[in-house]
């Protein structure tokens, strides 16, 4: 069965520090991968999605970047965090087959930038 791992669960970082959040998927190959941010009490904002290695689309101009060094690994990074980067970050994957629209989410990372 497929599983998605996202870590860390919580993170407190000072303004100006770097960021690296990692997400890995097991049990499937060539998944579509997604990074979302969720502000408190709000919906999900799509940040990046990837349909393959070296194929990453950015949805919103921001202080963040994403990379996909391996087929089932998706990393969200920042060189210098801003206060506004605080939020709940969610990684998700979907298949590339018939059920490609259904997304499966990780447990999320709560990031606090102080």
């Amino acid at each position: 069965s497929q599983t998605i791992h996202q870590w860390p669960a919580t993170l407190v970082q000072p303004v100006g520090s770097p960021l690296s959040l990692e997400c890995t998927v097991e049990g499937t190959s060539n998944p579509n991968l997604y990074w979302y941010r969720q502000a408190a009490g709000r919906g999900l904002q799509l940040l990046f999605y990837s349909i393959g290695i070296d194929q990453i689309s950015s949805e919103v101009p921001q202080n963040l970047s994403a990379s996909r060094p391996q087929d089932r690994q998706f990393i969200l990074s920042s060189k210098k965090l801003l206060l506004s980067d605080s939020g709940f970050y969610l990684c998700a994957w979907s298949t590339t087959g018939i059920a490609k629209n259904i997304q499966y989410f990780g447990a999320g990372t709560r990031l606090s930038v102080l």
Partner: protein
Amino acid sequence: SQQGEEDPQALSIQEGENATMNCSYKTSINNLQWYRQNSGRGLVHLILIRSNEREKHSGRLRVTLDTSKKSSSLLITASRAADTASYFCATDGDGGSEKLVFGKGTKLTVNP
């Protein structure tokens, strides 16, 4: 742009009652999905309804879709305290896209 918009934003009911949440969207879709999120957790897919379907059931869940009105509803029957969560609708935006656009969600509280 925000595609799905749920209402109400918050709903509080007693255990055993039915809960109805609504979602409206703006563009044509191939399908519409509902997800559930427990506090501080990731989203979990509940049900998908295709644009050529009008109603779909899964256990205590009933979803309807009216493409002429660009709206959907999620009904949870005989609610339980464990149903307390936020519920989001999601659409595939321009149709057939790998991307989903989520609404802001309805926060459901089921009181025991």
